């Protein structure tokens, strides 16, 4: 009996035909791949861009008969996607993409950070194509991105570690802010262009953002420390119905509250300014005594990140 799917049952010419078909198929896969690459590298349309990235991130290039010795991996396409999306939003000069020919992979640097950070995506191994944006020098993961589930999550602990501790003495505040603004711009594009669900965490500047402390039971002693530290810098931590208030300037107020914005019991911070341009992160950079207080009590105060991905 002749079975077309089983080469051993075919005649020689049949086998050749079958082989040829398989190679054609492999080449067609290669063609489809290069078309997607063209799309990823050249398109001016954000929607086409994300479509290419999504497909490439799960693309299987090799087949039984056609394999490609030089290949990038899924995480690299995320990096190209990120650079391209920023480019489409006139932020292309803020990042540089480097190709490492030896082992065929890509890394990215943020112009504002100079030589300090080298970033790449790494698979989250969560079977939905999620990736982590990781600094190759320190291993810190700045955010989680998932194109399929359309979400992005900033990682408060890594942002604190890198931008508030490690880089603080090495960079001017304006460069640190330029770097975090870039992360915000990327998240903003995902949100506005494709409707992603983005958690900016401590970088969020909106007044309604509740920065939740790690501890659910803030000790009076920690607030006492802030009270004493603030007083020595001529700021008065004031009593409030639901916690404490620190007026940092006529425009900017910091509140420590025992309820989140939905009214549930939780300790955290609100930063309020008319223009909604100030985040907890910016406060940490601008006020050394608050930074010191936050870092000294990080075990309790560290702003919570999405526990599903971090």
């Amino acid at each position: 009996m002749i079975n077309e799917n089983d080469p051993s049952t075919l005649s020689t010419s049949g086998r050749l035909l079958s082989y040829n078909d398989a190679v054609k198929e492999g080449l067609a896969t290669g063609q489809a791949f290069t078309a997607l690459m063209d799309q990823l590298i050249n398109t001016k349309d954000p929607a086409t861009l994300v479509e290419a990235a999504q497909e490439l991130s799960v693309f299987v290039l090799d087949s039984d008969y056609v394999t490609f010795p030089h290949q990038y991996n899924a995480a690299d396409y995320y990096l190209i996607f990120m650079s391209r999306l920023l480019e489409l939003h006139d932020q292309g000069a803020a990042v540089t993409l480097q190709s490492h020919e030896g082992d065929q992979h890509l890394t990215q640097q943020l112009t504002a950070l100079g030589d300090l950070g080298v970033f790449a995506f790494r698979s989250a191994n969560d079977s939905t194509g999620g990736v982590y944006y990781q600094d190759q020098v320190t291993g810190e993961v700045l955010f989680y991105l998932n194109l399929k589930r359309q979400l992005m999550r900033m990682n408060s602990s890594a942002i604190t570690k890198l931008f508030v501790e490690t880089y603080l003495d090495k960079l001017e505040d304006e460069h640190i802010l330029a770097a975090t603004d870039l992360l915000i711009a990327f998240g903003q594009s995902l949100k506005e262009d494709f409707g992603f669900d983005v958690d900016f965490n401590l970088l969020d500047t909106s007044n309604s953002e509740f920065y939740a402390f790690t501890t659910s039971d803030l000790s009076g002693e920690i607030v006492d420390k802030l009270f004493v530290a603030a007083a020595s810098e001529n700021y008065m931590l004031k009593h409030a119905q639901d916690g404490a208030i620190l007026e940092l300037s006529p425009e900017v107020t910091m509140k420590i509250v025992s309820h989140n914005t939905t009214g549930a019991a939780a300790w955290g911070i609100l930063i309020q300014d008319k223009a909604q341009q100030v985040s907890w992160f910016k406060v940490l950079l601008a006020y050394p005594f608050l930074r010191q207080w936050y870092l000294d009590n990080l075990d309790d105060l560290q702003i919570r990140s999405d526990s599903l991905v971090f």
Partner: protein
Amino acid sequence: MQSNSEEPRQEITPGQAQLDSSITQKINYLETLQRALHDRDDRQIYELIDKTRYDREVKKSRATTQTQELADLVANDHQQLSHYLSQNLIEYLGQTYPFFYYDEVQDGEFDIYFGNWWDRRLFGQLDVLNVAFNFDETEYNKLKRTFELSAMNQRYNTDHIAEITSKSAELQKLIDQQDERDHQKDQLRDQLKEVSQKSTLPWDSGKVKEERQSIVDQLSNLADQDEASMNANKQIKENDEQILGLSKEDTILNYEKQSIQQTFEDFSHFESHNQSLYTDYLNSLIGRGQVSADD
């Protein structure tokens, strides 16, 4: 015709007359008080509930009539009266003592908080009917002492903090010297071994024994220090907590001092204002009455 008009009127006995007058007096008193309430004439109310004091401290004259009995008629209503009178009084105090905040814990009963800063102190109670502050003695004395110490450029807990800080420094030294002690112990143990191996000639034995004891003593002294050093970290942490508490108290006392200085310049002015609060407040009510009468 009613029957009682036909009968001859009974003589009014002196006792009845006195009773009648007493009741009339009470009715008058209560009516006046009621009118004062309706007219929101707080001054009149204060006069009615303590005429003796009012005469002495506001009219600066001696009271001629005994009115305590009348004032007792409304003794049961003091809570409500206090609640009512607190409205104008607290408004007045808001101007004159801008740093005090009041919490009505139950009808007519007010706790006084000093300031609007974090963990401000419960400073006493407001006695609305007597227009007086009942300050918590301990807290009040701390503040008084703060003013005295500030003349010497010291804060309330400066000495205490310095004492704990130096204790912590000692403990830290004990921790830092661990290596040195370990080295000393090794040396002493070697010496001890050497001494033990010395041939003990009878005429030397006393000297050797002495030498031996001295080394053992030094070793035991070092062991004591080791043990103290093991607890030192915990102790230092406890000291830090104590220092935080004291610094916080100093910060609060300093805010209180600044508040008083901004309003009264110094503590003695603050005290004299407290003493004349009743007179000052009642006079302000009289002033206000005149203004509204002039309108």
